[in-house]
């Protein structure tokens, strides 16, 4: 919060004015003027634009996105359709779209997907760089996952970081007046909490988000990594070993032993049911609490991923939007991305997300929504510490292979289950060498 002192009085309207001035667009004239200022090309009659997105965990986000898409359609004279499907179903849809060279013109990319699908994606260097010039450089992870070789294969959209959601009241009772800054401090509080039957919660199964959040952030935090910058496997280090030993101890001392059986929604349920005191998650726990469990929302706050000997890290893939190479409407698609990422539109979409998403450039740290609810500030700040799958190497297809094989997650899970930490690390080394071969 300290960094926002003196900015508290900036209100939404004033912010927009600043934003509009910065882009050189006449905000006062409304959307048509903005589009006019940008000289939005009009497209031949009957131009169609089809967009495929995930179903957001924040329903208001989807509503606003559809509204904006329709608005663009009217302004540009383009027939826009938006399809939203479950995040898990995006991979097969993208695969079949690229292989059959037919389907949506724009598809959402999550984490390092632009690297997986680079051959099927059109270059969007102009749009992506334009935004960076206007709003400042992208966060490193947003850029890393979107640039393949030296071409932009997606326009960064946002990040959806996970921070620690925790019970301030219980932490206070356990002797922690504020959120612990280091892993060791967190463990100390955790021991007290678990003694009172209020363990923290962390998934170690095979779900998409939570287990990887732990595995990557903690490995990096202790100074370990899967590979070095050149892609050589370096997991078998004393830093990784320390991370594994720490995790085993943390598991015994602080965590709910249900974690091996958890999926990504288990911790949400356990937290809201009051059986755990803290867990790593997106802002969704807090949003649901505000709607349905106001008493819990009142005593919930968010804390940063603690620091380890190696520093503070978040595993954040970030999201982007890519234009498909097969698309016959690439120009209209580019105009849409340009228009959507322009400040007046993006501002509205971000406001609808209410803190769930973080903009792809530090510019959006100034959004007034962060002033509205200080409890969400750690989300805003998380992107600075964000790293991609495969860091410090490239977020390549090989990094994805390591990810889908859950090599890091299983290294921790097997150690928790009783395998010697040394053996778990050695196992991971063997598997990673095959994935990175």
């Amino acid at each position: 919060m300290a960094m926002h002192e003196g900015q508290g009085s900036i209100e939404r309207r004033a912010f927009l004015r600043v934003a509009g001035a910065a882009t050189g667009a006449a905000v006062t004239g409304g959307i048509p003027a903005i589009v006019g200022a940008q000289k939005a090309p009009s497209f031949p009659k009957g131009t169609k634009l089809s967009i495929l997105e995930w179903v957001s965990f924040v329903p208001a986000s989807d509503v606003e996105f559809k509204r904006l898409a329709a608005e663009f359609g009217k302004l540009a004279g383009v027939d826009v359709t938006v399809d939203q499907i479950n995040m898990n179903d995006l991979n097969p849809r993208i695969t079949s779209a690229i292989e059959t060279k037919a389907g949506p013109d724009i598809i959402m990319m999550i984490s390092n997907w632009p690297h997986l699908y680079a051959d099927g994606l059109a270059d969007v260097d102009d749009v992506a760089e334009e935004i960076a010039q206007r709003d400042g450089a992208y966060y490193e992870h947003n850029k890393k996952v979107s640039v393949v070789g030296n071409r932009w294969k997606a326009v960064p959209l946002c990040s959806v970081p996970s921070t620690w959601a925790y019970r301030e009241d219980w932490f206070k009772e356990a002797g922690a007046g504020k959120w612990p800054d280091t892993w060791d401090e967190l463990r100390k509080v955790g021991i007290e909490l678990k003694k009172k039957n209020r363990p923290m919660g962390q998934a170690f199964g095979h779900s998409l988000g939570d287990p990887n959040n732990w595995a990557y952030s903690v490995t990096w935090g202790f100074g370990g990594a899967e590979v070095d910058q050149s892609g050589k496997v370096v997991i078998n280090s004393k830093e990784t070993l320390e991370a594994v030993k720490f995790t085993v101890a943390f598991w015994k001392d602080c965590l709910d032993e249900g974690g091996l059986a958890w999926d990504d929604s288990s911790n949400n349920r356990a937290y809201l049911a009051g059986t755990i005191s803290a867990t790593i998650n997106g802002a969704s726990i807090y949003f649901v609490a505000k709607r349905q469990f106001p008493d819990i929302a009142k005593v919930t706050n968010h804390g940063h991923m603690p620091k380890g000997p190696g520093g503070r890290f978040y595993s954040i893939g970030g999201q982007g939007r890519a234009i498909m190479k097969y698309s016959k409407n690439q120009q209209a698609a580019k105009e849409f991305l340009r228009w959507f990422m322009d400040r007046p539109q993006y501002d509205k979409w971000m406001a609808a997300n209410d803190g769930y998403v973080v903009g792809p450039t530090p510019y959006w740290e100034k959004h007034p929504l962060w002033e509205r609810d200080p409890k969400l500030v750690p989300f805003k700040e998380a992107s600075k510490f964000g790293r991609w799958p495969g860091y410090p190497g490239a977020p390549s297809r090989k990094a994805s292979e390591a990810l889908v094989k859950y090599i890091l997650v299983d290294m921790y899970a097997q150690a928790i289950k009783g395998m010697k930490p040394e053996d778990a690390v050695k196992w991971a080394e063997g598997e990673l060498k095959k994935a990175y071969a």
Partner: protein
Amino acid sequence: MADQRIEPILAESARPTAVAIPAPVAVSVPGFRRPRRLGQLLERQDILAVVLLAPTLTILTLFIAYPFVLGIWLAVSDKVVGRPGAFVGLENFRVNLNDSIFLRAFQNTFVYTFIATALKLALGMLAALLLNHHFRFKRIVRASMLLPWIVPTVLSTLAWQWMFDATFSVFNWMLMNAGLISKRILWLGDGTLAMGCLIAVNVWRGMPFFAITLLAGLQTVNPDLHEAAEIDGANAWQRYWRVTLPLIKPIMLVVVLFSMIATFADFQLIYVLTRGGPYSSTHVFGTYAYEIAMRAAKLGQGASISLSLFPFLLAVIVFQLWYIRRSD
């Protein structure tokens, strides 16, 4: 009956004159030539057979043969999404054999299939024998038996997910309230236990198919045979073993065959419940192939994983078909 009907037709088609049409008629009026020709052609059995089979063959080629051949091609290529693959021979299979997760999936697939099929057969048979008696509401009970099989797998599996939930499991709640356990059981938190849970859900889901099909088989067994055996002094077990079982064996084998194929290739149930976790202990071919092909975009490698099923499925099918023929 049947012979009488068939014989004249056979006799007809055997006559050479039935095929040869007098030539002058066909030549004289050009306008009528075509339909006549078509008619003539269709009267030839070999051509008619091709025409009648064509739709089926087209569908089979498009939807079965083509994907299958494509699958084989992918499995021997280094195809990734968006790039044409190059032929790499058996390289993908070599990689698989060096992959501990693949080997685990391999083992799991067999454990899952054989235990689940055996249980489904045993329980299905038991249920069929019970349902084969006369009792009130017989039809409703028989129909409701099919419910687990009819409900979409994903939906019923989501219900099971709740029942196995680490925090809210209804099983744990019951066992704790009955005083049988003092600590919750983490149903999906341990490799072996999770595998057991997956098998249990598969059995719950697949057993009705066995029960209803075997019940249909049981109803074809002539009661006179049982009576005769009873008069000869056979007890219930002997009657089942020596009379019922041999008579329904063909149908039983067919059900087992179908079920094994479906269980070998199972995906949804495991993907929903564990996604192969914890620590890759519940992966089967289907789930692992999906992760590699779809989420890591390595279509070639993924295809080679799922194609590893093929030799075993083929062996099962060949054996069972041979067995059924032999017993005929």
